């Protein structure tokens, strides 16, 4: 069965620390669903039928799942090139994601965007763009729209650590503070910009939170491998923004397992220290969450294996659907330069 709008992707939570097997299981399912979709993409990519760059978020699933678990469907989200997880967690269609990667008409952007330009207006995922700091400015602008209309939505930007090296980040952050906008900025710090480590990009001891506090914005940092920690921080930040108390910056330390762009690895090519990978896997967001559930007595293996099997089937069915679906016709090349 294809879960076109799977609730597993956007588990619901109360503001309190998550409790109760169902909700925790939903968080686990959300992590697993993104992992599974990304691994299937990685497995199929060498067939050369997905003819566009892909930036996989394997290892970085907890911030999208944790943050989106605290968002309402009406809330806005923007993301960057590594956006599959954010798109799925916000509620974006899996078929439309895969369709976009396969360049098919059923793709969320009709095949014109590719993996770096995901959108699903049905769930208010307003767009992903790969030029680093831009998602911040876009989310601040959507926050401005919310503020002008006196709505109770919030606007969220997902981005990486290198986004905070572009001027547009500071310009937009300053504006969000100046106008007290209902915006949550979610930085996933994986320590890498393509393959350039933090050491060549930012001075030792740099705290992005301190920088942002210098602008006057609330800022918190946490472990981005622990979805429950993400949920706690996101819950507070989103409530803060929604109540009109101004924007919040969240920084989550995460690990990018795979290469910057593509299905492969860096560690087997001498591009990164191979000793890193085992330590990443010890802090695998799925392992961390499973460990919590087991300790809390909430791990039900038979239920979990059913959830995993459903997700596996959903992803497989989505791939089958997309592979059988048509490409856009040639007339689409020149269509849509302008909105009518």
């Amino acid at each position, binding site marked *: 069965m294809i879960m076109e709008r799977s609730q597993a992707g956007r588990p619901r939570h109360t503001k309190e620390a998550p409790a109760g097997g169902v909700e925790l299981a939903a968080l686990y399912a959300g992590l697993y669903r993104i992992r599974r979709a990304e691994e299937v993409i990685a497995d199929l990519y060498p067939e050369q039928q997905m003819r566009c760059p892909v930036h996989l978020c394997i290892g970085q699933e907890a911030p999208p799942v944790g943050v989106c678990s605290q968002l309402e469907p009406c809330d*806005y989200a*923007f993301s960057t090139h590594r956006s599959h997880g954010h798109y799925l967690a916000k509620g974006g269609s899996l078929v439309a994601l895969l369709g976009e990667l396969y360049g098919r008409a059923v*793709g*969320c*952007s*009709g*095949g*014109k*965007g590719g993996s770096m*330009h995901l*959108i699903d*207006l049905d769930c208010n995922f*307003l*767009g992903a*763009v790969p*030029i680093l700091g*831009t998602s*911040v*400015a*876009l*989310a*601040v*602008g*959507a*926050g*401005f*729209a*919310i503020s*002008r*209309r006196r709505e109770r939505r919030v*606007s969220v930007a997902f981005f990486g650590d290198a986004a905070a090296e572009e*001027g*547009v980040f*500071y*310009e*937009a952050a*300053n*504006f969000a503070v*100046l106008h007290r906008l209902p915006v949550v900025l979610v930085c996933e710090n994986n320590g890498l910009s393509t393959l350039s480590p933090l050491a060549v990009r930012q001075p030792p001891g740099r705290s992005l939170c301190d920088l942002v506090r210098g602008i006057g914005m609330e800022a918190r940092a946490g472990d981005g491998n622990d979805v429950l920690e993400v949920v706690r921080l996101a819950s507070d930040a989103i409530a803060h923004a929604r109540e009109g108390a101004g924007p919040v910056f969240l920084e989550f330390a995460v690990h990018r397992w795979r290469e910057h762009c593509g299905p492969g690895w860096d560690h087997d090519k001498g591009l990164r220290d191979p000793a890193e990978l085992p330590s990443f896997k010890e802090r695998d967001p799925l392992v961390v969450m499973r460990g919590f559930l087991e300790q809390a007595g909430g791990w039900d293996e038979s239920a979990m294996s059913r959830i995993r099997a459903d997700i596996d089937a959903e992803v497989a069915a989505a791939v089958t659907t997309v592979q059988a679906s048509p490409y856009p016709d040639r007339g689409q090349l020149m*269509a*849509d*330069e*302008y*909105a*009518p």
Partner: protein
Amino acid sequence: MPPETDARHTAAGRQLKYCHAIREALDLCLAADPSVYVMGLGVTDPKGVFDSTSGLLERHGADRVLDMPASENGIAGMAIGSAVAGMRPVIVHQRMDFAILCFDQLVNQAAKWHYMFGGKARVPLVMRMIVGRGWGQGSQHAQSLQSWLAHVPGLKVIMPATPHDAKGMIIAAIEDDNPVVSIEHRWLFNIDGPVPEGHYTTEIGKARVIRPGKDVTIAAVSHMTIEAVRAAEFLAEEGIDVEVLDLRTLRPLDREALVESVSRTGRIVVADTGWKTFGASAEIVATVTERAFPALRAPPQRIALADISSPSTPALAEFFFPGVGEIVAACRSVMGLPILSARKWPGSGLPHDVPDNAFRGPF
């Protein structure tokens, strides 16, 4: 979109300055649609961006008429984000040179948004950029970079020359669901012209024959349209019948109007406010040679800035900015007449570095 109600040829009476025509357009749009807001450095200051935004704050409030941090790129990105969330921002730059800081957002995001998301989303954004000239504006206050922007699919680039079109095209731009850049020449701001009251739009993407003629077509934009009309009036006295085609929009370019006019006159002079090399004039001449080559009776001529950065000193700026004299010479050239006629353009009687008697600087 409301129907075209271009009353220019029938409305006798009301005259407005170009700057006030723009202000009236903004005022009407702010009043008509709560999603419209106007933001820019100086928008709310007492000078009101050369009097094109003054009074709007008082009429529409600080929520909708705003000054901004000097963050050109961030504000452009913010404006785009607000547009995809349902607003209709109008962003103002007192000099186009500063807008270069936001070409990232304009070119990478706004221009592409509708196409790259498969037509599912739109960016109804207007960005006004004012081009300086004279009074020593120098290298970073006098750039007219329409060719950069008109090169980019997804953008619309308008360059209204008259108060009538300034109002009608700004309203059309605000009501358009696409990003529209309005390039406004500073020397137009104090020019009077007939402007109908109330709401009307001037269609984006349509040129207009501002003065019919049968011997030479001058295809002009923005302030060069005004200079072209002066040149045409001067040449009429020596029997040369010049047609002035005000292009009004560079993207989408009204190629049909160009071809139609040149097919009748057989001669083309292009008068642009930018540089010649890879400039808008090159695209216009290319269009004519591709589509109306058999009609051409003389090689096309182009009037553009000297191909160098803008000098500040009046001693050099005099030779940097072309005007009526150069247009007259080009028209004589395509007519096969001696360029250096005994009869020279007498000039406006003004110093060459001011648009009118009232202009006292500083920018």
